[in-house]
C-alpha cells in the first residue's frame, strides 16, 4: 500500500475545483488514457491573474490529489507566479508524495505550462517537450529528462523513472537514460548523443563541453562563457522583442541580471529569466547555474 499523507488522501477523497470550467480561456492537457494518467486543466485568466481554475483527471489517487492541489495553489496568482510553481512545490503542498508517484506532480506542472502556452497563443507543445524521444512507451524526451534531473537534483535512473515514467515500460531506454543522467550530472548539455536536433547557434558550439567527464569550470572560465552566451544568444533574442539584458554580477554559479527596455514591463519577465535566460545558460555553460533578476 502506498504511504500517502493525510493531505493527499483528503484531496483525493474531496478534490477541489473538479470539472469543466465553462468560461475558461486557457486549457492545458497532458497524458493519455493509454499511459494511465491524464490531466486537463482549465484556467480563467483576467488581467494576467488566474481568477479561477478547475481540472479533470484520469489517474491514481496521487494524480487526482496533485491536480486538486495545483488548482488551489494557482488561484489568485499572476500567470508568472503560477508558472514559478514547480512540481516540488505541488508535492510539498501535499505534505510529500511517494517517490514512485512524483510523476503525478510533474504532470500538474506540465499541464499548467500547456495551459499558459495556449493562453498566450504559443504552439501547444512546450519547448521542453521538443527534442529526441527517449522513452517510446511513455513518450518522454531527452529535454524533459534533463529538466527533471536538474530541477529535482536526481542522481539515479530509478528516480528519473519515478519522476517522468521514462524507462518504466519495456526498459529498452534505460541505458540511454543512464547516459543522459551521466552527461547531465557532468554538466553536459542535452542532445550530445545520437543526433542533436537543437542546433547550437553559430560561433558558440565550441562552448559546449565535449565528450567525457570534463573538469569543473574555473570562475574565470565561467564568467567568460556566461558573457559570451549573453552577448551572442540571449541579448540578440531579447532585442528582437524590443528588450535588453544587463549583466550585473557573477558570483560563483549565481548570475545577476537586470532586464531593460520592453522587458521591464513585460508580464512574462519571470518566465524570460527562468525559461530562457537561465535555461540557455544551463544548456550552454553549466547545468546548475541560477539566474537572479535584480529589479531595475
Amino acid at each position, binding site marked *: 500500500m502506498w504511504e500517502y499523507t493525510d493531505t493527499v488522501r483528503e484531496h483525493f477523497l474531496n478534490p477541489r475545483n473538479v470539472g469543466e470550467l465553462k468560461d475558461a480561456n486557457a486549457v492545458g492537457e497532458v497524458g493519455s488514457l*493509454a499511459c494511465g*494518467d491524464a490531466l486537463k486543466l482549465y484556467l480563467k485568466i483576467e488581467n494576467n491573474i488566474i481568477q479561477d481554475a478547475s481540472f479533470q483527471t*484520469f*489517474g491514481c489517487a496521487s494524480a487526482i490529489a496533485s491536480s486538486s492541489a495545483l488548482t488551489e495553489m494557482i488561484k489568485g496568482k499572476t500567470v508568472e507566479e503560477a508558472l514559478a510553481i514547480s512540481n516540488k512545490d505541488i508535492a510539498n503542498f501535499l505534505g510529500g508524495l511517494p517517490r514512485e508517484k512524483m510523476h503525478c506532480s510533474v504532470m500538474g506542472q506540465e499541464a499548467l505550462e500547456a495551459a499558459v502556452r495556449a493562453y498566450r497563443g504559443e504552439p501547444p507543445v512546450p519547448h521542453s517537450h521538443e527534442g529526441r524521444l527517449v522513452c517510446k512507451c511513455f513518450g518522454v524526451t531527452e529535454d524533459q529528462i534533463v529538466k527533471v534531473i536538474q530541477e529535482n537534483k536526481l542522481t539515479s535512473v530509478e528516480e528519473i523513472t519515478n519522476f517522468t515514467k521514462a524507462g*518504466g515500460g519495456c526498459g529498452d531506454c534505460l541505458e540511454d537514460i543512464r547516459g543522459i543522467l551521466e552527461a547531465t550530472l557532468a554538466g553536459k548539455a542535452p542532445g550530445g548523443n545520437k543526433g542533436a536536433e537543437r542546433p547550437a547557434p553559430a560561433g558558440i558550439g565550441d562552448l559546449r563541453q565535449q565528450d567525457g567527464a570534463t573538469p569543473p569550470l574555473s570562475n574565470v572560465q565561467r564568467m567568460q562563457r556566461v558573457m559570451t552566451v549573453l552577448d551572442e544568444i540571449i541579448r540578440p533574442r531579447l532585442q528582437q522583442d524590443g528588450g535588453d539584458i544587463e549583466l550585473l554580477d557573477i558570483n560563483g554559479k549565481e548570475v545577476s541580471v537586470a532586464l531593460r527596455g520592453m522587458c521591464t514591463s513585460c508580464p512574462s519577465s519571470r518566465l524570460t529569466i527562468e525559461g530562457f535566460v537561465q535555461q540557455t545558460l544551463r544548456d550552454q555553460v553549466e547545468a546548475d547555474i541560477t539566474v537572479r533578476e535584480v529589479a531595475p
Partner: protein
Amino acid sequence: MSAKTVYFDNNATTAVAPEVLEAMLPFLRDQYGNPSSMYSFAGRSQEAVARAREQTAGLIGASPEEILFTSCGTESDSTAILSALRARPEKKHFITTRVEHPAVLSLGQYLEKQGYTVSFLAVDGKGRLSLDDLAAAITKDTALVSVMFANNETGNIYPVEAIGKLCRERDVLFHVDAVQAVGKIPIDLQALPIDYLALSGHKLHAPKGVGALYVRRGAPFRPFLRGGHQERGRRAGTEAVPNIVALGAACALAAEHTSDENTRVRALRDKLQERLLAEIPEAIINGDPEQRLPNTMNISFKYVEGEAILLMLDQFGICASSGSACTSGSLEPSHVLRAMGVPFTYAHGSLRLSLSRYNTQEEVDFVTATLPKIITRLREISPYKHLADDASPGDGAACACQA
C-alpha cells in the same frame, strides 16, 4: 472509515480459519518439541507432522510420502523447477507461460540468464493457452514444462490434464503451480499426469509461512535446501510444526468445503458479477468465464484507474486488488492483462474481487451498492467521461511497447 472489513481479496491471502488456529495453538505453547528428538515429548510433534502430511495429501489425492513441507508456494515452485532441471542437466529448454505468477515467471527469466532457452507461451484474449502451441514448443532439448493450475488475477483454470498427457508422451517433466487452485476446486493427483505440484497454506485459510510440494513417486528430485535429514533429506531445516499442523488442518477443512466453494461461493460471485455488469456501463470481464475459479472475478472499468478505485473502496472497508500500473509498483498494468491483450484503457481500470467461504450475501449486496457509485464518481472527475462512445480498443496501442 467503516469499522467492518469486507474482505474480497482472498486470492491475495485468506483469514486463518478458527479451527486451524485451534489446531496449531498447542504447538505454539506446550508442544514445542523438535520432531527429530528422541524422547516421547517430541514424538507428539512428529506425530502431528505425520498427521498433517496425511491431511495435505488427502486433499489432492496424493500419498503422504509424496508431500514435502516448505515455507511457501514460491519455495515449492523454485524447488520443483530447479530440481527437475538439475535432474536433466543435458537438456537446456524450459517451457512456461506469459501469465504465470512471478514465482515462476521471474525464475524463468533468471534461467534465461543462466543459459537456458525459455519459451513463454502466449495466451489469447481470454487468457487461454493453445495446446498446439505447447506441442509445437516442445523439442528434444525440453526438460520441463511449468503451467499454473489457475491464474491468480483472472481465475482462469488451465487444462493441466491435457498438458500433462502431452508432456508424458514427449518424455518431458511437468510442474504445476496450484497455489490458487488447491482448496477451491477438486484436484486428484491419482488421475492427473503431474510430476510436481506447488501449494501454499495462506491461500486456503492456514497462516502465512507454510507451503507444500507434491513430488510424484519416481519423479527425479534434487534438494533445494541442503542440511539435516528432515523431510527424508529432501528439504532440510527444522519443521515449522505449528504451521505444518495448521496447513494439515486447513487442507482437511478445505476437503469438506470444496463443494461449498463450487456452489454457494460460486453463486455469490456470479450474482456479484451479474449485478455489477448490469449497473456499470463500459465494464468488461477479463479472463475465461467458462473455465474459471468459482471465487474469482476480474472486471475492468473504462476511464478510471484501479488504484483510485481501491482507495475509495477502502473508505468503505472493502478490500480488493487491481492490475493497474499504479498499484503494481511498476508503471505498466499487470503482465497477465497485457499478455491477454486487454486494451490499456481497460487494463488501467481493472479490479479483482476474490471471495471465500466466509463471504456473505450481505457483503455482496454492500459491494454491489457501493462500487457503481465509486465508478460514477471517478468518471465524473475524468476528462474522458465524454469519450464513452468513440473509444476503441486501439486506444491501448500508444503506450504498449510490448503487447
